[in-house]
């Protein structure tokens, strides 16, 4: 649905976006993750035909954003970082205006207006002036604006920024419910947002893509090794000796728990083989009490820091 090929945007000597390439399939939600100033907004602005690229191409629904801007614009709903609202208009007046300039047919306008208001749950607010709405509601009107012409592609720039936790949850659920019918690109610098809403993540730093994958794969790959957390009661020395005998265990770090002879263990194992079963059996067979046993996952947060700081080190 969206194909981006070696897209570059230069401001003087500064490369805001540097040879970025990625694809988004129909119905997919792609997360665009990166620190502030990484080039997320610039990339989105190129995709929405707001800015021209310096080099490279981008196609939306088969249309080039530069050559066929009008066709692309018809198919894209865009929510910029600041929702583009006219404070002195009513919600209905505003959405009506957007429907007109987005090319919604006159006979469909009323129905679409009603539908998007239901989708973003602002049914009762049609007659209200936008300036009297709270921030959360303004954001919803912004989303309604992006949805009004039922676009195939939705591009949302930090859709949850500045909202309170409940509103964030609602907006995320809303976005999730829109996938399938719509192809969505969503930018954020908040990591849990990506693992909660997106099927695939593009991590971008200093204008370059540093990783593209599913949130799960990213966390796994970056680990290099699997980690297991275990609590057991029994002689610490004996437990450690048994653990080291198991093939695939790379290192063990133990810490006393303070109650009797119990200790906690952080075990690093090879990624290739799953040794969890063997570890558990070995502990039980040795006559120890197994209190807790679980796999540790690196949070996306840690992956993100690793990837983006590695990048910094490399560029230095």
């Amino acid at each position, binding site marked *: 649905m969206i194909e981006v090929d070696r897209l570059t945007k230069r401001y003087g000597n500064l490369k805001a976006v540097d040879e970025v390439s990625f694809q988004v399939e129909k119905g997919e939600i792609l997360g665009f993750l990166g620190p502030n100033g990484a080039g997320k907004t610039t990339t989105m602005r190129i995709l929405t*035909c707001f800015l021209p690229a310096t080099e490279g191409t981008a196609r939306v629904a088969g249309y080039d954003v530069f050559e066929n801007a009008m066709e692309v614009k018809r198919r894209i709903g*865009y929510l910029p970082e600041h929702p583009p*609202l006219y404070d002195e208009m009513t919600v209905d*007046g505003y959405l009506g205006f957007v429907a007109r300039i987005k090319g919604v047919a006159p006979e469909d306008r009323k129905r679409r207006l009603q539908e998007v208001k239901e989708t973003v749950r602002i049914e009762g607010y049609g007659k209200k002036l936008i300036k009297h709405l709270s921030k959360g509601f303004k954001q919803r009107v912004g989303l309604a604006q992006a949805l009004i012409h039922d676009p195939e592609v939705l591009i949302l720039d930090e859709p949850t920024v500045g909202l309170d936790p409940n509103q964030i949850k609602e907006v995320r659920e809303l976005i999730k419910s829109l996938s399938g019918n719509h192809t969505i690109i969503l930018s954020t610098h908040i990591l849990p947002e990506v693992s909660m809403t997106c099927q695939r993540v593009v991590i971008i730093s200093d204008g370059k893509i540093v990783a593209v994958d599913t949130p799960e794969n990213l966390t796994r790959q970056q680990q290099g090794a699997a980690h297991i957390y275990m609590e057991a009661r029994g002689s610490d020395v004996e437990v450690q000796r048994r653990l080291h005998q198991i093939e695939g265990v790379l290192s063990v770090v133990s810490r006393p728990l303070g109650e009797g002879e119990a200790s906690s263990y952080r075990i690093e194992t090879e990624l290739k083989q799953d040794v969890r079963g063997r570890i558990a059996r070995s502990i039980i067979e040795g006559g120890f009490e197994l209190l807790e046993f679980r796999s540790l996952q690196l949070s996306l947060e840690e992956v993100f820091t690793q990837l983006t700081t590695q990048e910094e080190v490399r560029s230095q």
Partner: protein
Amino acid sequence: MRNLLAVIDKEMKIYFASPVAYGVLTVFLLVSGYFFYNILSVFIQRSMMMAVQAQQFGGGAPAMDVPALVERNFFGIVSTIILFMVPMITMATFADERRRATIELLLTSPLTHFQLILGKFLAAMGFFVVMLLPTLVYQVFLYLYSSPRMALGPVLSGYLGLLLLGAALISLGIFISTLTESQMVAASITFGALLILWVIDLSAQAAGPLVQEILGYVSILNHFDDFSKGVVDSSSLVVYLSFVFLGLFLTYRSIESWRWRT
């Protein structure tokens, strides 16, 4: 066409939602009304004095066309007041769209730049016409109370001149509004630019014959004089329409250029 109407409609809504609009309308009516009254009473007094003098010294009173003189002076004054009003009308057109980031909505919608600019220009002209409309009442009174009835030609040409002058100044104001994100800065620069046009007009009157002729062509205020006298000169029409075209063309280029810069 549909897009154009949508833009005009939205611009009009925004105009009349703003207190600035009502301020502009009020000030314009107060000032133009005051000058109309003033000019009218001055010329009536003068014509009465001439009539008295004629009686004292014998002989017929020299003909004095009071309505024509009033119209000429009134249109002259209004064309100056407009210089102060146009910056207020055009300051927000693009500057405010940039400040509130709604420009991203407009430029990512399937609208052509031409539709956007023309829509904004026509809406500003619409506001300008709304501002001028009440002054027609003055003309109605002048017509009803003049004897013999005043000629309507100069009134029509005067209003045509005001519309053309307004269009030229508005297109310049809209262009200047694309240069900044601040309405206030846009208004100040526009006002400054209009003052320069005014100064060109004044210096043309004081300069030597050759310079006077050249500046006379350039000065768009100078061309207005013909209209207030009831003369519709095709060269003046061409000057005004070219000025409008130039202003809108520069606006177009300016929008293109900040797409490449920002």
